[in-house]
């Protein structure tokens, strides 16, 4: 949908943009929600973005909480330097290197959590799947029965 919103939070916009996150977080007023949902019915771009934002939120929610093994921090920061400090490097730098390693480790956990395809939450894009079905199933079949319903955008109330 390329029309601009006339007033309120969406004034002057042709797409929902940041309002999509607010919609998912329940931060929009009922009127704004209604406007946003009405826009989503006709705007595939915003529908796709909503799906992507929703998926990112789901991924984050799905990350495992990992407790480090006993003594993990101590080994990194005190007893077992992860990054061998060159001669002359001050202890403060070594500590920073350890913290950086911790940050990298945390990032690794995040990547593992998100990157595991089997564990990744999936939010099927129902409208797209319906369209894919209608267009493929209409091949070699009655076009009016099988294809015409795809002229109606699919929307499901949340």
């Amino acid at each position: 949908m390329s029309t601009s919103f006339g007033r309120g939070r969406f004034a002057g916009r042709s797409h929902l943009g940041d309002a999509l996150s607010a919609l998912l977080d329940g931060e929009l007023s009922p009127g704004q929600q209604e406007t946003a949902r009405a826009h989503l019915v006709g705007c595939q771009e915003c529908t796709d973005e909503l799906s992507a934002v929703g998926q990112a939120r789901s991924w984050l929610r799905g990350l495992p909480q990992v407790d480090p093994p006993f003594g993990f921090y101590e080994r990194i920061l005190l007893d077992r330097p992860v990054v061998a400090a060159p001669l002359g490097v001050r202890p403060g730098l070594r500590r920073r290197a350890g913290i950086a390693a911790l940050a990298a480790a945390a990032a690794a956990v995040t990547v593992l959590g998100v990157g595991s395809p089997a564990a990744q939450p999936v939010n099927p894009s129902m409208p797209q799947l319906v369209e894919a079905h209608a267009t493929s199933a209409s091949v070699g079949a009655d076009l009016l029965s099988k294809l015409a319903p795809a002229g109606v955008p699919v929307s499901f109330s949340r």
Partner: protein
Amino acid sequence: MRVRAAQASGTVAAVALVAGLAAPASAGAPAPLEAARQAAEQTVFEGVLTVRWRDGDATRSERLQVEAGGGSLMVRGANLVMAGPEQQRLLAHGGGGWEQMWLPSLAARARPDGNAKYRTTTPADGPAVAGRPTKVVEVHTGGALLERIYLDRETHLLLERDQYDRQGAIVRQLAFESLTIGGVAKPPTQPRPAADHSPKQVSPERLPSPAAAPERLADGYQRLGIYRNDSVLQVLYSDGVYDLSLFQQQGRLLRSDLPGKGEKVSVKGATGWRYPWPGGQLVVWSDGGQVFTAVSDAPPEQVLTAIESLPQAPGRELSLLGKIRRAAQALMEPLS
């Protein structure tokens, strides 16, 4: 009660004879539906088509402008949909650009013989639809009326299709409000080059497991083709009258991400959710680290029977403990 193939072929021949319809070139839809298919591809017409469908306790409806000629058919609703020459399919969301949804190179197998499962009645004179005289045909299976189909007496174009539930109430209807046949429609023109959103054909041998795309499902559904679009695998099935797409994505389903109005159903011992759409219904569920979405125009009980016959998904999702263990191992490896 299923009709034996031999009896069914006799019925079809009789139906075709009485109706004066051309016999289908191959096995597939019963003769009246095959005649309607050919008419939609060959007739020049334009009209307004209304789609009505039951959505929970409410009935929803949309009007669509349809025009056909020169081997193409265009549907104008909030979405634009076009069937172009050589089986091209294009779609544009309101105001957006055209997307190529299906290419001629994506061959599908011929549909199975629908007469093995369905019985169609002899065409009889029906009421006028959009001011045109009709022949009405009923589609039955197991003694139950599934559909009444009203075909234009002159061209065999489908003018109305009513689908019934087990209680005999209409759950979905497609009907012309107005229709002009012949010589008035300007043939829909092929849109400018569209973004390619068509799937890629997948050979069964290239699947990680044959269980991902069984050749047959219960209730007579046979596989027509396997396709992939990005990370989504689509297996298309048909029983000769209805079609069923089984979409598969790796991952797990979060109930909180699904639309709230779904009807809870049991699928292979797990919980699934069913949603109506203008052309049928959709069932979504999760099994063995896969998210499945079945989209079909078939009656609800048929869809559930068909998907119940799917083999157990081979992969199993890691438990939370498994995920933690794997993450911790990977984390500790470079540090030890």
